[in-house]
């Protein structure tokens, strides 16, 4: 697989490590009443879709940036690559 890095251009997926579903950006509020329940779902449960999947890749052997890659899990086709930083900021999350 080739991941089209927003800053560095097309890079071999071998340069990256994979974390999982990009929903991991949405870390819940640890102070909330139901934090235990919400964190259980956040840490352990996954949609695991067959089709389009937004996921976190880390450019370990490159610029060490986190990317949000939109990839089809049936075909491995990558349709979109964003910097995770930009995604997090647009969701109102700090860094």
């Amino acid at each position, binding site marked *: 697989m080739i991941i089209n890095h927003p800053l560095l251009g097309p890079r071999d997926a071998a340069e990256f490590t994979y974390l999982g579903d990009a929903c991991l950006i949405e870390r819940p509020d640890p102070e909330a009443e139901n934090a235990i329940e919400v964190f259980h779902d956040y840490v352990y449960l996954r949609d*695991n879709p067959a089709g389009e999947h937004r996921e976190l890749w880390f450019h370990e052997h490159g610029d060490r940036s986190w990317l949000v890659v939109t990839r089809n899990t049936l075909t*491995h086709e990558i349709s979109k690559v964003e910097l995770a930083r930009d995604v997090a900021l647009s969701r109102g999350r700090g860094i």
Partner: protein
Amino acid sequence: MGFSAFRIIKEGLTGNRGWTPHWRDPEPKAQYDIVIVGGGGHGLSTAYYLAREFGITNVAVLEKGWLASGNVARNTTIVRSNYMLPGNEPFYEFSLKLWEGLEQDFNYNAMMSQRGIVNLYHSDGQRDAFARRGNAMHLAGAGAVLLDRDGIRQLCPFLNFDNSRFPIHGGLWQPRGGTARHDAVAWGYARGADRRGVDIIQNCEVTGFRIENGRCIAVETTRGPIRAKKVGVCVAGSSGRVMAMAGMRLPIESQVLQAFVTEGLKPIIPGVVTFGVGHFYISQSDKGGLVFGGDLDGYNTYAQRGNLQLVNDVIEAGMTMMPMIGRARVLRSWGGLVDMSMDGSPFIDRTHIDGLYFNGGWCYGGFKATPASGFCYAHLLAKDEPHSVARAYRLDRYRTGALIDEEATGPNPNLH
């Protein structure tokens, strides 16, 4: 009609005209006591033990493709019980004991071959960890032998003992481990279940669950609705997809594991050998092909194929462990979908929906579990309580903190 030496000789002398199909091809009935979703190794063994052990024969196994077309046809056929944790080891040892009596039990040649499995160690620390694992195996009655360098030399003289980076110091040997003929396992269970009255229905994909008042009462299929008192899902690799139809999110990611086979060679590898540094394991099939594999590709996928990077990784590890493999020519490689759970261990449990049961999360180790998985799932479906060796395989164990994390890598499915 049973198999026996007498029968084979008789058929051989009479032109092999007496053999009949091993199972029927029935139309689905409108209703069953139990419907199993998934006609792979685990689904078929569940049906077999439901009929054989628990006397429940009004059972259908629904398979979307042809019988045993998924992971039971794509694994590397290894059978072993060298786990460590209390939630796992008794279960896998129960499975190995079932393997040992399986061929007599279902009257089918599954080519069970207990040639042993050896896990190599390359440092003092790794030896200590393996000694601990070996002790855990002894506690479960599985047996294990900690071999030093000379012991490994006698077993596998062809290994690269003096690799400057990863010298081989010894290995943990389970002599009762080995391999079995994967397809024959599925066929034997299918035939055994069919002969006891189970309907095996192929080309019948489940497209939904009919759930009323918190109870699953039927499955929708491409061949019409089928009512059932209980529905047991058993579709590892596609669990996320199927359980989503019941509105469930699972602690599972679907990933791909690749495997490889070379051209047929003369017998060289006794049993199974696993590398203790890079992930690599190898055995030799009865036809002579070297069967080997390594790590997961490591990302979510439902495509039954992997990427070249992993092929490189596996072959590099193989060359490091036994350089002679460089002279063998790889014939085929393939990929199978695996349910990677959040702690690397499986599930055999009820769901929060009455009448709906779940068996999955087998990671890359489902084949060796086939008999015990079926037996324990049948026990759960028949009696509504877990079998004693499968009590730990609960769906809520992440909530209760009772994880079974053999690799101690936390909720990172691609690291287990």
